[in-house]
């Protein structure tokens, strides 16, 4: 029950203005006394926190934001929805209808306040349908969509994780393969390394052997050096530049010997020539007498021949040479013929000249003079000569010739022969004498040459003896050897320098000591003196190098693979994908459960809404009840009962019969009739709206009522109060109404506040 209304800065009412309430409270006063302000303030206090927007805007603009209206209440506090309050609990005469055009869902709100125990099943159905709906803007409408969205997101995330898992599984496979590959390669690497180590050991041993050999070589080299030095010293005197002297001697000796040989040959030739000359001379001298005789005989014969030829034994004759004549004729003929055929005068003239010339030549040459001898006389002369020759010269030679001419020539020859023989003998004799002189000269030259040669020979022998050589060749050989040894020694020295440098030794003795020490060490290690052949070692080294390269390449590969593996493992180890999948699966299950619950609630809400829909479907009955109630209440005000029709709570839904019995809409009724209908309807609605006690606020409710209707309305109000126990608040400027109320309600129930302009101004 309302006890007190306390106003602060509310319109006309300043700070701390209080109004007490009784079961029936009347506020009366002239215009602008503050009744409307009080009506608004009471409404605001009753609907605090539940005021529709249009009302709030109106109050703000009218009274400002500083206003405060508070209620003190007894028992269960009354609180209203402003729309419901204004339409059911607050009755103003100025309201033309039940509906409030400013509030769109006023009818729903009113219905919910009216039906059954003030609960509208349609409203509940609407609530439940909204609860079941996913279309609205409230969070529960959006919840399912949100959950489904989340579920989709989670499923997407799960499939991403599954893909990642698959990638990891594949990565693991690859890792395993990689690890396998690494293990395989490492096995190969180990084998290779073992091989390489074995080879390296062999090579190392071989190198020690080689070292040993090289040390041996160095020692041998040193030894060779000593030998070379000894040889060099031994052969030092043998110098090739000594030889030219010997060779000069030799050359001279040779020349002398050659001259001796020539002289000896000359001597021999001279002797042979002298002997030949002596023999020839002897032979010549032996022949000369015969020849003298023959010459003398030949002289005589010549004289005889000359004598004979001077006789007439010979006749001179001229003869033609036949062959020449024939040739001349033939030439003539040929020339003539040619001239004739060739034609032309000059030619023919030439031919004629030729012919003439030929004939002349023929005549001149063909004629020869020939001696013709008397052959018999000649023959006898020849015989005579031959006999004479036989008798005078007994050389037996046949001197016969065919002709005397021949004989004379022969005889002339015999004289010449004799002369020649004599000359020859003289010449030969001279020559023999020259030869003898020459022979003597040669003998002397020979003797001198032989003496010189002998001196040279002994000189050469002396040189050889002096130079300690059996022969020149021997000396030369030794000199050559000496040069070679010297060269070898120079070479050796050069090598020695290199060796000293190599072994960091200052001299050969040091080097030798070092080599011997190293050899002793190698001996101690049991390094043999000989190893594998160099080619084999080179092959081994090549193989070792190959294996080493392979091994390195493999090692690089393994290192690379291990890096990859480490990377992969790092990636795999860092990803607890199973945990993430489990978490997501739980999230999905959780969301699914939430969705299921949400859907269950929506289905259940829809089911419940359906039930409330069924209940609401029975609304017609409720309206009929309401219409009957309206009619009954209305009838209490009007002189006679009026028919009415109520389909809904809107202005157009209600029709009331006028005095003539015609049903009219509220707009078409007289204002008194309409207001009295609305008053009755509001009382009914108020009565139905709540089972408990409440409050009814009436602002000039009966302004349009005539006296009779006002009286009846006050009585109705009294009855309503008696029936319901509701508090009644009346605001009016009508003092008659105040009086009527005062006479209807006992004074203990009624509290009257008279508002005045003056009071308000305070």
């Amino acid at each position: 029950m309302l006890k007190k209304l306390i106003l602060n800065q509310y319109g006309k009412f300043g700070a701390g203005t209080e109004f007490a309430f009784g079961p029936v409270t009347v506020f009366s006063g002239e215009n602008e006394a503050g009744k409307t302000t009080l009506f608004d303030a009471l409404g605001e206090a009753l609907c605090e926190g539940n005021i529709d927007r249009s009302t709030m805007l109106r109050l703000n603009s009218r009274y400002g934001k500083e206003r405060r209206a508070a209620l003190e209440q007894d028992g269960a506090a009354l609180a209203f929805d402003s729309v419901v309050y204004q339409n059911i609990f607050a009755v103003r005469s100025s309201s033309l209808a039940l509906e409030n055009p400013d509030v769109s869902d006023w009818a729903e709100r009113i219905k919910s306040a009216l039906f059954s125990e003030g609960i509208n099943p349609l409203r509940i159905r609407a609530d439940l349908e909204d609860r079941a709906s996913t279309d609205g803007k409230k969070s529960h409408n959006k919840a399912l969509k949100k959950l489904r969205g989340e579920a989709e997101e989670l499923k997407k995330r799960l499939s991403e994780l599954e893909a990642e898992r698959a990638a990891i599984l594949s990565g693991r496979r690859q890792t395993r393969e990689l690890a396998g590959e690494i293990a395989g390669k490492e096995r190969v690497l180990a084998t290779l390394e073992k091989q390489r180590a074995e080879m390296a050991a062999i090579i190392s041993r071989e190198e020690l052997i080689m070292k040993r050999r090289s040390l041996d070589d160095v020692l041998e080299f040193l030894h060779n050096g000593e030998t070379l030095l000894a040889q060099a010293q031994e052969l030092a005197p043998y110098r090739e530049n000594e030889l030219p002297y010997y060779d000069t001697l030799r050359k001279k000796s040779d020349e002398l010997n050659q001259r001796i040989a020539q002289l000896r040959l000359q001597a021999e030739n001279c002797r042979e020539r002298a002997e030949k000359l002596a023999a020839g001379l002897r032979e010549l001298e032996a022949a000369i007498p015969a020849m003298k005789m023959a010459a003398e005989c030949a002289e005589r014969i010549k004289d005889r021949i000359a004598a004979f030829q001077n006789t007439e034994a010979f006749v001179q004759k001229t003869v033609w040479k036949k062959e020449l004549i024939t040739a001349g004729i033939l030439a003539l003929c040929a020339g003539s013929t040619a001239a004739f055929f060739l034609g032309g005068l000059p030619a023919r003239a030439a031919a004629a000249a030729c012919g003439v010339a030929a004939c002349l030549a023929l005549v001149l040459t063909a004629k020869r003079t020939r001696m013709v001898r008397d052959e018999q006389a000649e023959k006898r002369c020849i015989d005579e000569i031959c006999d004479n020759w036989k008798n005078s010269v007994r050389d037996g030679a046949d001197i016969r010739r065919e002709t005397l001419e021949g004989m004379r020539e022969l005889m002339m020859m015999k004289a010449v022969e004799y002369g020649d023989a004599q000359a020859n003998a003289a010449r030969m004799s001279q020559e023999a004498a020259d030869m003898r002189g020459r022979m003597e000269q040669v003998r002397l030259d020979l003797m001198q040459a032989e003496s010189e040669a002998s001196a040279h020979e002994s000189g050469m022998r002396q040189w050889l003896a002096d130079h300690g050589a059996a022969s020149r060749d021997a000396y030369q050989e030794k000199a050559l050897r000496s040069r070679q040894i010297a060269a070898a020694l120079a070479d050796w020295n050069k090598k020695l320098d290199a060796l000293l440098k190599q072994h960091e030794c200052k001299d050969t003795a040091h080097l030798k000591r070092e080599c011997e020490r190293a050899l002793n060490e190698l001996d101690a290690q049991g390094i043999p003196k000989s190893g594998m052949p160099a080619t084999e070692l080179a092959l081994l080294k090549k193989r070792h190098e190959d294996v080493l390269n392979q091994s390195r390449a493999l090692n690089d590969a393994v290192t690379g693979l291990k890096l990859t593996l480490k990377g992969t493992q790092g990636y795999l180890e860092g990803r607890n994908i199973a945990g993430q999948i489990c978490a997501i699966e739980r999230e999905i299950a959780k969301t699914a459960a939430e969705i299921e619950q949400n859907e269950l609630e929506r289905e259940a809400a829809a089911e419940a809404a359906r039930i409330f829909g069924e209940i609401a479907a029975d609304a017609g009955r409720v309206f009929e009840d309401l219409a009957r109630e309206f009619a009954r209440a209305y009838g209490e005000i009007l002189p006679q009962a009026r028919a009415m029709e109520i389909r809904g709570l809107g202005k157009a839904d209600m029709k009331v019969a006028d005095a003539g019995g015609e049903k009219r809409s509220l707009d078409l009724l007289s204002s008194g009739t309409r207001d009295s209908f609305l008053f009755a309807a509001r009382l009914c609605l108020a009565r139905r709206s709540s089972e408990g006690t409440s409050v009814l606020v009436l602002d000039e409710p009966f302004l349009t009522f005539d006296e009779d209707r006002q009286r009846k309305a006050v009585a109705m109000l009294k009855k309503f109060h008696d029936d319901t126990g509701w508090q009644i608040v009346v605001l009016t400027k009508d003092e008659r109404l105040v009086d009527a109320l005062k006479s209807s309600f006992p004074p203990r129930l009624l509290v009257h506040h008279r508002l005045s302009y003056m009071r308000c101004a305070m």
Partner: protein
Amino acid sequence: MMRILHCADLHLTARDEREYSLSVLDEILGVAADRETDALVFAGDLFDSFADAEALRAQFRERISRLAAACGILFVPGNHEERGIRPGRFAGLDFGPIDLCDEKPFQLIRRGDVEFLCIPHQPDYSAFEQWQVPEKQAKFRIAVAHASVPGLAGYTGMSEEEEVKAGAMDRDIFTFFKADYAALGHIHKKSAGTAGSCALHYPGSARVWRRGEIGERGVNLVSIDESVQVQFLPLRRAGQYRYYDVPLSLDGNVDGLEELTGRWHPADTIEIRLFGLVEDEKDVAVIQEAFLGCRRSGKVREIVIDTSGVVPVPGIASTSIARQFLARWNDSKPSDDDSAGMRRWLKAREMGLKAIQPYVGR
């Protein structure tokens, strides 16, 4: 043939549920003896915490001593045994003649034709390939592990943060190690799956450890001959967790109360959620008392009543729309077989009344 009893998540505790948890252990040991199993495997969370392991080890030793002579007992610790563990203390505890397989990341134990690859709880198993587990030597290999396995981990809606904390194991691990059977623990809901040729089994928690663990509790009997056969054996003394949404009538009564309580077992844990609008709050206390009486009389082990869904609304019993609604709702009851319909129907009642509630008493 070899028989192995696979048990998980018994959560022996020295606190409130000590007797209950030990009684389930006794039943498990009894089953192992009756079935003449060759091995009894505890796949983690045998104890509820390290402190419980310390407190109960003597009782545990005593209880298993007889069985241990005939049956090898393997205990692979789970995440709960590590709760409050002190460094180096686990191996120091004497659990009697059992194989305590707490070496991480794994321990391999051979029993006849079977080798057990024991994987105690770890936060992360993803580096399993580096574990260098020896090649399978025996005919069969059983992996014993305490972890979540994707695809098998259920959702109970309760204490999910607890599950998140545990390590998760990809099922690839079982194929990788060529296991034939994975004796798993950690997930309290019974479930099974495969990974290649390996059968993965969670028998579920061996007792009701927390709310929400609906369904029979039990252990898996694994028979290994030429192949692996699995049989689920329910544990009577473990009871069940049963949950009911119970509508209250407007005057605070429960229909079919006798029928409901008649199904219960003394070891059961019951959770009842009462809901509805009632005329008088006192009526709720009365019915709550009736349920709690079931625990006192030993009809159930534990009963929890949730009355948060009950709203006292004076005058509701005489509110015609509520009466109308309930009358019509009652008429729309689905058949008992339609469990989804039944749930929806019950929910519709709750929601319908809730919708009325704001309008009642205004």
